[in-house]
């Protein structure tokens, strides 16, 4: 038995895309304890609800995180609509879900690239990000932005997607499918990738439930929980929705789940693009939330369940706005998964929870 030593990891580290600090207690190259420290990205934007009215806050909500930007603006808008009892047009609901699923496609492909980078497959990383650019082009064509879209507003959406553009969505997504499946083969069938990820960072189903893990991280531990199956908004109109799960519970399973979710999201976009009803894309929202009115909402972000809570006070300014983001749920699971792993696997495990620190700290 060697001596215990502590290795500081992050916030600036070649393999970390985001500022997370870990104190790794190691003994003979094996991590026996990992303590995450956060606080590098905290801005305090929940308090901005006191100085921005509920319409203005939507652009702050969108900037909670630049990767799940659309999901946050949608989650916030839905919460305010519930708070004020606004019913939005069906077409707006469909458009929101189409964009949201497209964000999931871009987020998961981005993650697959970062995972490839984490296990040292630079070329695969580049291929993933090349594919992702095609998805971003669709965003740019329909919203004008690549990562921050400013397209959701309280009461609906700002812009419509016409029928020819929706067809283009479908044809572009079908077009990348061939290349995407090739990339997936590299991830899921290549023996070197499999050796690197199989049996690494295992969390059993019971442990995952104890730690309240969410999102693909939990689904890879065979927890069939996906907010989309609740059928909020246009998700309710899907002919069939089954959460994608895997029972391997390791890093490989997390890759498998995310790889399959991209294909699932593309199928959802195709189905909704065919079904989308005609009509208005927004309703005017006037007035202010009532005194002591409360509303909450859950959205399945690319990283998992995100919970929103809002409280009104009779003015245009909210009393309280609170989010609980998927990564803050999953950090506990990450710390457990790191126990007993080799020091060389730390970056792989940290990455497989798809940490979004700026969501977590806001």
């Amino acid at each position, binding site marked *: 038995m060697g001596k215990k030593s502590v290795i500081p990891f992050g916030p600036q580290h070649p393999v970390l895309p985001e500022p997370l600090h870990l104190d790794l207690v190691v003994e003979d190259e094996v991590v026996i304890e990992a303590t995450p420290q956060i606080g*590098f990205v905290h801005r*305090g934007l929940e308090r901005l609800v006191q100085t921005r009215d509920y319409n203005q806050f939507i652009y702050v909500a969108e*900037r909670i995180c630049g990767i799940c930007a659309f999901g946050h603006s949608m989650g916030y808008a839905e919460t305010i609509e519930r708070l004020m009892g606004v019913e939005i047009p069906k077409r707006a609901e469909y458009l929101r879900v189409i964009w949201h699923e497209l964000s999931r496609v871009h987020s998961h492909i981005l993650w697959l*690239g970062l995972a490839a980078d984490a296990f040292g497959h630079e070329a695969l990383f580049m291929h993933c*990000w*090349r594919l992702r650019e095609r998805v971003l082009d669709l965003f740019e064509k329909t919203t004008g932005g690549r*990562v*921050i879209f400013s397209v959701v507003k309280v009461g609906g959406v700002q812009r419509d997607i016409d029928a020819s553009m929706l067809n283009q969505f479908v044809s572009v997504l079908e077009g990348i499918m061939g290349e995407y499946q090739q990339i997936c083969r590299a991830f899921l069938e290549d023996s070197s990738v499999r050796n690197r990820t199989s049996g690494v960072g295992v969390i059993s189903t019971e442990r995952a439930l104890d730690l309240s893990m969410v999102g693909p991280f939990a689904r890879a531990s065979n927890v069939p929980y996906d907010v989309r199956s609740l059928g909020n908004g246009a998700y309710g109109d899907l002919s069939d929705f089954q959460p994608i799960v895997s029972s391997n519970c390791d890093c490989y399973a997390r890759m498998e789940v995310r790889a399959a979710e991209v294909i699932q999201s593309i199928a959802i976009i195709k189905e909704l693009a065919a079904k989308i009803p005609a009509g208005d894309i927004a309703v005017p929202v006037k007035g202010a939330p009532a005194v002591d009115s409360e509303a909450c909402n859950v959205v399945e972000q690319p990283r998992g369940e995100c919970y929103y809570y809002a409280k009104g006070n009779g003015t245009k300014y909210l009393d309280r706005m609170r989010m609980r983001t998927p990564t803050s749920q999953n950090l506990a699971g990450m710390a457990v998964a790191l126990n007993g792993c080799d020091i060389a696997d730390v970056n792989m495990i940290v990455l497989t929870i798809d940490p979004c620190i*700026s969501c977590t700290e806001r």
Partner: protein
Amino acid sequence: MGFASKSPWVIHYDASSCNGCDIEVLAALCPGFDVERFGIINTGNPKHADIFLVTGSVNDRNISVVKQIYDQMVEPKVVVACGTCACSGGIFHDCYNVLGGVDKAIPVDVYAPGCAVRPEAIIDGVVQALGILEEKSKALKESKRRA
């Protein structure tokens, strides 16, 4: 043109950005914009880097990290503030935990605005930074010759 500006290596640090600018910094390096074909490589080691790309504003917790990375970089070096938050604090300027732009911590040479900053703006900023890097490297040589 000096050797450094022919193949400048960049280091990227996310101060308190929302990730929007970070993924655009990476997107600028990846296929699509592909600045790697000009020899610009992302490194994790401050001692290898010539250009420091900072995204996001500084706060009390990360200001020391930003300063440390800057101090570890060897001369000549340039700093590019990527995105509105890094330039001035952006829409978060009046948050209680935001001190302001990156220039509150370290001297900034080029400001690349945008929320989120577009890869084109980052490339433009880096091209401007190369000119500054060249000047700084000349001045450094001059001062060494005199000494």
